Every structure is written in C-alpha cells, then in structure tokens.
C-alpha cells in the first residue's frame, strides 16, 4: 500500500469534567488508504464518534487531543494551526452526520447551502456556484434538482436530506469522507439507497471513506477493513472478511454472536453479559475483562497492547487464540 491518506496514531482525547477528566479515546490507531473504506464499529460511548471528530477537528469545546498524531495526506493536523486545519476541512476531508435535520441550516434553502462552499472556498461566481450545486444534486440522485434547490430542509424527507448533506460534503472535492452513522436514523429501504449511493460515489470519485456504525451488517456491506472500538480503545483491526470469519478479540466475537443474522436463524442469541464500563473509572487491565467469557488472571494486570495476529490484523487480547478457536468450533456467520 502506498502512503495512507489518513493515519491516526495513538490518539488520545480527553474531556474535562467537573470531577476530573474522562478519556473518551485511548491510544487509538488506524489508517485509511486512498479509495479505501474503513469501518469503525462500536457501541455508544465506545469513542468512535469522538475519534472521528478529532480527525476533522470538530471536537466539542471541553475535549482536547492530549496525545497522538492525526496525519491527513502527509500533514499532521494536531500540530498544524487552525488556519491550516480549516483549509483541509471541506477540501480534503469532509464529514456527514447521523441526523441531517440538525446538521443542515433550517432557514437556508438547500441549494444555497450546497453552493456556499464552491462560492466561498473555490471562489466561484454566484451563478457558477448554483450550476455546481445543481450538478452535485444530480450526482447524489436528488430528483428534480431545480425545484428541490429552493426547498428548505424541513420540506424534504429524511433520505433526501441525507443526500443534500452528502452533496454539501462533496462540494469541496474532498479525498476523504467521514460518515458518522449516516443511515442510523433512516428506514431500511432508505438506508439501502444511501449506502448504494455512497458506494457509487466512491467508485466514481475515488473517495476514501471512514464509516462509523454500530451495525455490523452495514459494515459488512460497505467496508473492506474495520476497526472495532470498545471503551475508548481499538480492540481489533483487520479485513472485514477475515475478522468476521475468525474474530480474535472476545468482544468482536460476542458482538457477532449477539446480532440476529438475517440469513440463519439461531436457536438463541448469545448475549454479552453486563454493560460497557464507565469511562471515568475504566476497569484495570483489559477493559473487557468483566464481561469476557475467556477471562484469566493475567487479564487483570497492566495495560494490554495490540498484538499482531496475522497479515494486516491486530487484537488487544492476551488470549486471542481462544476467541479464534471458539469461532472455528462454531462459525459466527454462515458461509463467511
């Protein structure tokens, strides 16, 4: 692989709280090559959204990057000034959000919202920017763009709003598109349409995508590689097909076993007991140990590093062979 477009190394993000600090992301590392799709999987509170926001420089005011580097196209944005970061945002990296209604400006016509970037950043005239906006709307499959350009966000359906948001994200010709649960708020039929649209755009424009989701099936359909996050840490990375066939972290294994599979009906879903830990006081040693079925004494002491567990794969588990053996005994998904 050539130089990756995005390289996140040992990223650490902390929130200042009244009672101390909370480490929402703890030494997370991942990479995305040009034109590649990386899935970032985890439950709410696992730090996946915070990690994504740190990349694009949209952290809430109480949060700070306290360690690690984020390199976009060779530039370390954590060291760069705000001007440089702003220049990258939109033209190199763009982001789409879960809830288009709150991300769009409710009192501005959607056509003008899409034309804003070409006008302000790319210096196009008002008329040219309008033409660009209509082209972008056509590109993202909005029917009758001329009429829709004059609509306000509330007049559009959820699916169309998400398409508008994608058009805005694409308006600066980014190379990397960060997608934060872009389809979670949508119906399954509309989700399907948006996922196919993103796939088509990726092929046509050679985009790299980072796709954050809690839905493993969505990740399976959209991503080549994935990073699984748990309690602020990346606990497993690798190619989607490899990880799904033979997960090497017990959390990944548990997650795959707990979701109902559309194709194969299991007698009972294997639930993961307990609940994700409180990040203000994470468990000692491995953060998953209180819920882990393979837990042993050595899991409780010291921080667990990411172990190399095969070509392009890593897992943060001392006993990763056990999860893999369990998956070999009973495959997690049929025909994978």
């Amino acid at each position, binding site marked *: 692989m050539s130089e990756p477009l995005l390289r996140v190394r040992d990223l650490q993000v902390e929130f200042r709280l009244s009672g101390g600090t909370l480490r929402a992301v703890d030494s997370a590392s991942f990479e995305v090559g040009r034109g590649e799709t990386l899935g970032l999987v985890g439950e709410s509170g696992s730090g996946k959204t915070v990690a994504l926001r740190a990349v694009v420089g949209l952290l809430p005011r109480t949060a700070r990057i306290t360690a690690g580097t984020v390199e976009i196209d060779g530039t370390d944005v954590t060291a760069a000034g705000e001007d440089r970061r702003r220049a990258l945002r939109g033209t190199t990296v763009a982001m789409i959000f879960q809830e288009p209604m709150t991300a769009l400006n409710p009192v501005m016509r959607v056509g003008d919202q899409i034309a804003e970037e070409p006008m302000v950043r790319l210096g196009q005239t008002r008329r040219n920017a309008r033409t660009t906006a209509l082209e972008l709307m056509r590109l993202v499959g909005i029917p009758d763009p001329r009429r829709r350009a004059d609509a306000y966000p509330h007049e559009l*359906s959820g699916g169309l709003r998400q398409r508008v948001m994608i058009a805005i994200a694409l308006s600066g010709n980014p190379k990397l598109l960060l997608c934060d649960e872009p389809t979670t708020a949508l*119906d399954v*039929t509309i989700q399907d349409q948006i996922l*196919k649209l993103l796939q088509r755009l990726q092929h046509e424009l050679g985009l790299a995508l980072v796709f954050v989701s809690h839905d493993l099936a969505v990740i399976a359909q959209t991503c080549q590689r994935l990073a699984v996050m748990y309690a602020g840490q990346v606990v497993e990375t690798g190619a989607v097909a490899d990880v799904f066939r033979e997960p090497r972290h017990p959390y990944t294994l548990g997650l*795959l076993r707990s979701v109902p599979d*559309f194709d194969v009906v299991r007698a009972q*879903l294997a639930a993961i007991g307990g609940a994700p830990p409180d990040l203000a006081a994470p468990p000692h040693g491995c953060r998953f140990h209180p819920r882990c079925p393979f837990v042993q004494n050595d899991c409780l002491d010291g921080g667990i590093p990411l172990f190399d567990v095969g070509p392009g794969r890593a897992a943060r588990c001392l006993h990763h062979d056990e999860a893999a053996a369990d998956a070999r005994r009973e495959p997690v998904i049929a025909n994978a």
Partner: protein
Amino acid sequence: MPESLLELDGLHVHYELRGNLGRRVRRQEAEVLRAVDGVDLRIAKGETLGLVGESGCGKSTLGRAIVGLCDPTAGSVRYLGETLTARRERARRRRIQMVFQDPYSSLNPRMSVRQTLAELLRAHRMVPKQAVEARCRELLELVGLGPRALDAHPRQFSGGQRQRIAIARALALEPELLIADEPVSALDVSVQATVLNLLEDLREKLGLTMLLIAHNMAVVRHVADRVAVMYLGRIVEEAPTDELFTNPRHPYTQGLLRAVPRLVPGRVSETAGVVGDPPSPIHLPTGCRFHPRCPIAQEPLCSTEDPALAKGPIAGHSAACHFAWTERPAAHVPEVIEETS
C-alpha cells in the same frame, strides 16, 4: 388454525388535520391522514406475530389502537369475540399490555420501581395488599433484576435495564397479549440480544401471545412465528415467517428484504431494493398504493385498481398484488427517481 385471540376487522384510524375548519368553510374536502386504512388481522393464541414496515406506515398506530390508546375511526378490535373500544373497563384493559420503544420516556422518572409496580398491582387488585411487596420482587426476578432495584429510580438504570422494568410493568397485570413496539431499537447492540432472549423466555414461560412491531427484519425473523408487512396503512402481505422470508410474493416485501444489509461481507447488488420515498399518507396514490415505487407496475391496471389481500396456494400466505399469484410482468425502473448520470 387455532382459535384467534384478537381479530381486527376493517380497522381504520384516521386523523383530521389542522386547518380543516377553514377548508370546510370554503366547502373543500377535509384533509385526513390515513394512518391505518382498512386492516384485517388475526392473532392466534400463543403465537408471535411480527409487524414490519417503513416509518409512517401505521404500524405503531395499529398497536396503539389495539391497546386502546386511540379510537378507531371505523372497524372493530375484537378480543375473544368481544368488541373493544378505546374506553375499557379495568378488567379488560388488563389483558392487553404494551412495551414501548423508548424506555427513557416511557417510565415515570419520579417514581421508584416499587412505586411503579405497586401502583398497578393495587389499582387492578392483582394480589392481596400484603402480597404486593412479594409480587414486586417476583416480577423483577422474572425479568432478571435483583430486589435491590425496587428502591431505585429509572435514571439509575441503563437502557437495557429500563426496558426490563418496562417489561415487568407490562407483565404486572398478567396480560394475555403483549404488544412490543420496537422494544430493542433504542438499545445498544450488545444489550439487544438479552432483551430479545428475555421476551422469548417469558413467552414460553407465561404462554404469552405477542405482537412484535419492528423495522429490523433480522429481529423479526428471529422472534416471530408469522409476519405481516404493512405499507401506507394496509397489510400488503402476510405469511408464516420462513415462508415470507424465502418466498415473498409482494414486490414491496421483496424490495424490503433485498434492502436489508447482510452479515456476510461483500454481497452487494448495485440497485436499491426499493426506490424513492414512501408517499404521504394524506395524499395516497390511486389504485395500488405501491404502484409509484413498484418495479412491475402495469398501466393502467395498477394505478386504477386497488388489489385486495388474496390467498395463495400455500396455507396462511396472502398478498395484495395483482401479480402475486400469477406470472409476473418484466421488471422496469419506476419513474419516481430520474436516473442520474
């Protein structure tokens, strides 16, 4: 087929929209939102019926009409032969209970778990006064929570635990029919499985009949015995679960199933399962409601004639499509979206 517990006949729930007074003055027709628009449905004793469809198709309203949270505009809800209206005596209300989607808003934040459960047990005289405390503990045990939870308030629990409390509250009245409206969609993935397993256990243990309203097809396939697919206020297909998933006959069901993302990596088709957005339930399409999005719609038949739910050769399988049980016309791309590029 075993005896039906619940029978819906020609059920309609319509909502008049605001601004209708002005329209009436101007002698215009009043605008009506047809949330449920002619549903016939049977639920047999002991079965779990899954009800699926896009948001806005009326599935939640249907559930609410069954429990009595809204009044049907026309048609009837019959429970063991008796017609039920929204106003019910306590004894009848008890038999059908509901679990809502969002356990953060469906529990009273100012009442402890004990207060929530005890109030119900007393009001409905479910157990003698001195046995209320013991019954509260028993209910919590049933949903897998310890007696320590009794004195806690909803905010002290996680989403999954709250949903367990909501289930305990529904079970306090020993209902025969439990309506679960998206019971796991507000929960984290790793917690969803525990709540689904709990519902299955309870169903076996207590012999519950269940109506599971959900948009997640994998969940429905896992839990339901039979599935009904709803589109714009109507049931468009109904079949035993395996049959529906392996041999869907309505183009909408077929599209819906194609739209579900699969766990097997990299098995994607290029075209979307169903194109376009669902039409507004205020201005319904003429003829078959699905025809503007349908890949096999035929003019003028489909835009003029409304197909009825028709039985097929397989027992219990019916579909509301002109071509459900005949040779189907070739698929085309519906015009609702102008193809790009």
